[in-house]
């Protein structure tokens, strides 16, 4: 019985979040209106000329610097020729021979160990349109909105051995690119797409096995399943004495298996040649220095600072800094409430719990970044209690209502006036004679129950501290009496 190891390399396509497309002035934003962001240029009409978007080059260099790449002083665009309806010009403009960035690396953590993943290259290219198959009419419908939206393709070295490493790499890549502000990296919406090149070989062998390329995975979970499924298929074929064929396969996450894609005829002969309409991109030392100076604090530095400055536990700092969106909420909250530990606890427990319940990713949060800080401030000022704070956060997450308005509209301001609370507590004590007598008989844990009942009677708005003090005092009176 041979033991096999899986060897993988990843090609990640990332849509850059520029305002306009790469070679024309059409909006690059997502829109539901098919073909609403299309001009003669991105529709591939003869006689149009491409004009390169400066920001695309800047963003690609930002990504390259953050991934420790060499930035090419000279890069150039090539045409990749093939016929497919999603590509109206019948060629895609890309960078085959002279990519903008080369030879980088990204360090990941898996199972507590650090591993450096080589980045072979990053090149700039344009996206293709979207093709929808209309089975009713037996035709295909094309929407060119995505055509010519700028992409970078990040090609790793074949340095991965486990699905865990792949997932850690993609998470790190996503957070890095989000920190840089060059892409929103939403896998479900296709602004970040990963193709996995996968092969297996007997442990200890030097030669790589036959590789297949896996496409069509829309989430990290689906990628992990695709890796396990496909490597198992490879091993099965080899052990049965069969031969694998180098091909592109589509992963079907519902059926948990991959299918060979019907290969475009002679698809591998793209007849690349330099695009005569585009000048080479020349980047100077000054340009690179200027971009380097604007790089933000990235995850590792930030995490170290949170541990050092805010004294957060490493685990919390790791989760918080794992998402630029959580960082934005957290840092704004600290600015407002001046209590990093409290802010971190609220993000880590309450906010994450609400996100999980609603099955949302941090990037799907759309509320004013000030809201959580304002809620914490109301709590520390005694205007609301913690449980009203939680309710308010849930409302903010859902409707982005101002916390102050929510509290006022629902009459949730905290009642801390002993004069208002005392009659309510007396009533609770009268109604719960059994609990009271047990308490007086020595079962002091019953105080929690009585606090709960009092809070309920005050419709959740009571100041828990005041309630407890009053309860203890009144119960002591009864003890004596």
């Amino acid at each position, binding site marked *: 019985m041979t033991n096999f190891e899986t060897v993988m390399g990843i090609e990640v396509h990332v849509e850059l979040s520029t305002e306009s497309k790469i070679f024309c002035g059409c909006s690059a934003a997502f829109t539901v*209106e098919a073909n609403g962001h299309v001009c003669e240029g991105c529709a591939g009409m003869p006689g149009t000329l491409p004009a390169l978007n400066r920001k695309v080059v800047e963003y690609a260099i930002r990504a390259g610097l953050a991934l420790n790449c060499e930035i090419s002083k000279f890069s150039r665009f090539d045409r990749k020729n093939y016929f497919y309806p999603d590509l109206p010009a019948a060629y895609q403009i890309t960078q085959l021979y002279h990519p903008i960035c080369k030879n980088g690396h990204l360090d990941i953590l898996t199972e507590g160990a650090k591993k450096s993943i080589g980045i072979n290259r990053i090149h700039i290219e344009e996206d293709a349109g979207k093709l929808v198959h209309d089975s009713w*009419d037996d035709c295909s419908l*094309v929407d060119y909105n995505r055509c010519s939206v700028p992409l970078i393709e990040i090609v790793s070295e074949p340095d991965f051995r486990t699905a865990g490493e792949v997932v850690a790499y993609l998470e790190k890549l996503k957070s890095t690119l989000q920190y840089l502000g060059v892409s929103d990296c939403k896998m479900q919406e296709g602004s970040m797409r990963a193709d996995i090149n996968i092969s297996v070989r007997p442990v200890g062998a030097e030669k790589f096995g036959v590789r297949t390329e896996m496409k069509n995975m829309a989430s990290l979970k689906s990628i992990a399943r695709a890796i396990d499924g496909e490597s198992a298929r490879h091993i099965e074929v080899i052990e049965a004495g069969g031969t694998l064929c180098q091909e592109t396969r589509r992963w079907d996450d519902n059926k948990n298996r991959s299918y060979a894609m019907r290969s475009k005829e002679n698809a591998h002969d793209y007849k690349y040649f330099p695009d005569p309409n585009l*000048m080479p991109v020349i980047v100077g030392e000054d340009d690179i220095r200027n971009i380097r100076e604007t790089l933000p604090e990235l995850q590792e530095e930030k995490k170290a600072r949170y541990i050092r400055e805010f004294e957060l536990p490493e685990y919390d700092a790791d989760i918080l800094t794992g998402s630029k969106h959580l960082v934005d909420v957290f840092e704004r909250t600290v600015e407002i409430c001046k209590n990093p530990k409290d802010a971190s606890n609220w993000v880590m427990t309450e906010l994450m719990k609400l996100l999980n319940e609603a099955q949302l990713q941090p990037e799907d949060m759309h509320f004013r970044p000030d809201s959580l800080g304002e809620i914490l401030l109301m709590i520390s000022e005694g205007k609301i209690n913690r449980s009203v704070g939680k309710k308010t956060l849930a409302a903010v997450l859902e409707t982005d209502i101002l916390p102050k308005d929510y509290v006022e509209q629902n009459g949730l301001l905290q009642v801390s006036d002993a004069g208002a609370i005392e009659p309510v507590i007396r009533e609770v004590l009268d109604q719960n004679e059994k609990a009271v007598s047990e308490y007086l008989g020595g079962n002091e844990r019953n105080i929690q129950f009585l606090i709960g009942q009092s809070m309920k009677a005050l419709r959740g708005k009571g100041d828990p501290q005041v309630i407890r003090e009053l309860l203890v005092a009144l119960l002591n009176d009864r003890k004596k009496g």
Partner: protein
Amino acid sequence: MTSSEKSNGNDPVGIDAEQIEYLEQLARIRLTPDEKVRTRRDLSSILEYIEKLNELRTDDIEPLSHTVPMAPVFREDRAVNGDRRIEILRNAPEQKDGCFKVPKTVE
């Protein structure tokens, strides 16, 4: 190009019939037998003409990416085009649901 290495003996830089068929497939066109003969003859003579360049020694010369030295022209990142769906879709051979309608294409 590896395929040009297998040219037949009596035609040093020529293109064989097999390559013509391959190009036909790549370019998605269909040639009549007569057109195949003519295309093969034309392409062979073009290749022969270009082959002249191989007689030059270019070992010490850096490849030129463009014939005129020009600085790259950048466009600022601004979305200036509005919604031109109606106009753009006029170029579609057929349209449906605001899309270009094409023969069924499945990968």
